[in-house]
């Protein structure tokens, strides 16, 4: 897929673990893991908003398009 998820990089920058992020965002660890590993096929705006809020970043920091 051309959309790359850079969630792990943002998590390292903010020093947040997967467990902490899942608690803050309110989604399951398995869903977060799916997102991190690129298995997820789509992301809701509400999830993206919650992740951006938890990691204090912009959607563009998490999502990247590689043509």
């Amino acid at each position: 897929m051309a959309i790359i998820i850079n969630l792990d990089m943002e998590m390292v920058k903010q020093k947040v673990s997967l467990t902490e992020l899942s608690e803050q965002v309110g989604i399951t660890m398995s869903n977060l893991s799916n997102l991190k590993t690129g298995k997820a096929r789509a992301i809701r705006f509400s999830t993206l908003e919650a992740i951006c809020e938890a990691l204090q970043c912009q959607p563009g920091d998490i999502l990247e398009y590689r043509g």
Partner: protein
Amino acid sequence: MKIRVQTIIVEIGVIFAMLLTLGIGAYLVPFSNEVAKANPTITYMRVPVLVIAWVILACVLTALVLAFLLLERISKNTVFEPQSVCLLRGIGILALVAIIPLMILFFYTKANVDGSITNLYVILGILAMIIVAVFFSLIAAMFQKAVDYKQEVDLTV
């Protein structure tokens, strides 16, 4: 709960159909002997026709086993998965495979018996198998779409 009860009822029906198929398979031996005694001129056809009938029954039995496995998946709530599509496709393919012995039976009877009424039933059987094959192939194709949609929903975070 309602679906579980319905599934159990259909499962019982499928098991009964399996037993009936096995029973018919066993009954074919004495029945073929009776037919051979009644028509001594075509006794030589007994064994080949018996084998063809058993092959058709084997296809039916395997299709019933696949249907039973599919019902099990429904009762376990794991029906919208790629394996279910394979089971549906399998039933369709078995219906197509069953056409081969039916065709052999048609030509074998045509070559050996003039104006046999049996061939009318064989043609009807071939038509029924074609309809079953097309029906299950369509259902499998639709099911594949449903599985794709479900995966899309499941993988939306």
